[in-house]
């Protein structure tokens, strides 16, 4: 969902509801509900339009016509489309995404298993990307046209242009095989895998809950390489945007005012200018985070990371429509929540947006 669309939606709803905290909350819930409904409608229609017969996928090629018909009725596919949609929505709202043909688990169970892996990876990657990307962008902006600017640009460009699977393989080759600084593919050494009870599904958190520091460091050394490689990708983008936002802010009048006051250059850049840069930057970071949360299939394959991207791709290749649609809904819901979060942060950072 683009920022522009979001703005428009806000504008329309503002007219409809009263202002004030309650109004803001109602507006938020309303726009959430509408967006989620749209998401369900689209995924439902995609599921019906795709030339995949869910009945055939369930019963197999050799089933008799009578079995086929029975299963078709069991699945509710003989009902009118609006009724099917209604059932679909009420199922989804109860957390029932159906059964996965591929894993023969319920889709919800599968997603509960794979989504935390992606969430963990994307979060660590975004933290690294932000922690390095913003300073790199600021550094490039204040040295505009000089060698630090060029260095940041070349590193960023390389990060954006290199195929991520190649980077992943090279990373494994160098840091795992040759140098042995990090652990290899997977979320834990295979020896440890069954030791841990998935409370939250986030390996870094679960190991801490169990109080097992060895396992925690093992999880860290597994996540560090894939997260860094994903981070490199988003870092390039974040640094580039930070640089251009920063240059724009540094030419504003209030920066001159701050200089007149005799404030240190350090404070002018990190407090005055960056405070204003963060306002548009928060949307950039949120979008890049949301993209990572979709699951990065290539990285997940290279690092045997049991995440959402891998799950959706495998399901799609095996015509497992329930799993694909369930995954799509999760991705959509993630986008909606991250957008909402960036809206909230936007208001927090920019007093002009608080009404």
């Amino acid at each position, binding site marked *: 969902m683009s920022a522009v669309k979001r703005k428009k939606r806000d504008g329309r709803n503002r007219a409809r509801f009263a202002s004030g905290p309650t109004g803001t909350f109602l507006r938020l819930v309303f726009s959430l509900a509408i967006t989620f409904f749209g998401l369900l409608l689209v995924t439902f229609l995609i599921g019906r339009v795709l030339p995949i017969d869910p009945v055939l996928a369930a019963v197999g090629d050799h089933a008799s016509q009578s079995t086929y018909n029975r299963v078709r009725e069991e699945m509710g596919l003989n009902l009118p489309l609006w009724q099917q949609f209604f059932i679909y929505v009420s199922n989804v709202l109860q957390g029932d995404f159906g059964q996965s043909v591929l894993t023969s688990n319920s889709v919800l169970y599968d997603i509960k298993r794979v989504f935390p892996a992606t969430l963990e990876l994307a979060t660590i990657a975004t933290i690294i990307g932000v922690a390095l990307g913003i300073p790199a962008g600021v550094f490039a902006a204040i040295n505009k046209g000089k060698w630090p600017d060029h260095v940041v640009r070349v590193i960023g460009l390389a990060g954006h242009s290199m195929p991520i699977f190649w980077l992943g393989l090279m990373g494994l080759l160098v840091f795992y095989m040759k140098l042995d600084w990090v652990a290899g593919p997977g979320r834990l050494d295979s020896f440890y895998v069954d030791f841990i009870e998935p409370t939250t599904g986030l390996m870094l958190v679960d190991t801490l809950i169990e109080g097992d520091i060895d396992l925690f460091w093992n999880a860290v050394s597994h996540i560090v390489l894939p997260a860094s490689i994903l981070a490199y990708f988003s870092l390039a983008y974040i640094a580039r945007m930070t640089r251009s936002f920063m240059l724009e802010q540094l030419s504003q009048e*209030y920066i*001159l*005012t701050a200089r*007149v*006051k*005799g*404030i240190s250059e350090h404070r002018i850049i990190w407090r005055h200018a960056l405070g*204003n840069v963060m306002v548009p930057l928060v949307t950039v970071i949120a979008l890049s985070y949301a993209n990572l949360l979709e699951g990065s299939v290539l990285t997940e394959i290279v690092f045997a990371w049991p995440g959402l991207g891998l799950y959706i791709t495998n399901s799609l290749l095996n015509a497992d429509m329930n799993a694909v649609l369930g995954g799509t809904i999760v991705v959509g819901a993630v986008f909606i929540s991250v957008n909402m979060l960036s809206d909230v942060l936007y208001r927090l950072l920019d007093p002009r947006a608080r009404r």
Partner: protein
Amino acid sequence: MSNETLLSVKNLEVTFNTPKGDVHAVRGVSFDLGCERLGIVGESGSGKSQTGRAILGLTAANGKITADQMTFHDVDLANLTPKQWRKVRGARISMIMQDPKYSLNPVMTIGDQIIEAYREHHKVNAKEARHRAIDMLDAVKIRDPERVFNSYPHEVSGGMGQRVMIAMMLIPDPELIIADEPTSALDVTVQLQVMAILDDLVRDRGMALIFISHDLQLVSSFCDRVLVMYQGHVVEEIKASALHEAKHPYTKGLLNCLPKMDGDHSDLPILEREASWAEG
């Protein structure tokens, strides 16, 4: 007018290096300033603002300042390190900017911005600084200083914003204030109010003032002495009270362009410029 010289500028030149060649914004400006109120008038592009910025060393990065002499008391403004500049700016020389809509940081509260200006030069705790800031807001005749203290710049009007600006620039108690078109962005009705507040404070605290404006009448009513600038040169220096005795044709031309309240209602003359004025 005091005899002691605060600021002495001799042959100041500001040149900008642009892709289309060098642009000479200020060409050989010289003046001495005591503890007085000096007006600098001129049309846009005459170099008046650039003169003000050069005194604070805040010329844009592609600009170059040269001067035979530029001293403030015993400080040589022509050769200061960034660290030395920070002790001069705000604390000893300060500048009031043109438009509060752009010259205040939109994401910081007004209180934070004023406190920042004060604490940069005075080692006091947060409570004391807050107290000072609210007193200062009161001094610029803001009726509800507590509320304004906690407001953001977009929440106050232009006239109020400019009073905040004055409060912020005067709070470290500088010796010289440069006011760069401080009222141009304001409504005519608030202009005089804001000017009067600035004038009162400058007199009360015994500060020197450089008032940069294109408004000859406003300048003459608030200043002791006026410099008239044209194309980077000072074409005339004259006492504000003796403005009607101006000799230079440009100053006379400017004066003739002002509408008169009484008598003569014929068309105002168009200012005729002569190339020789720019050679100064």
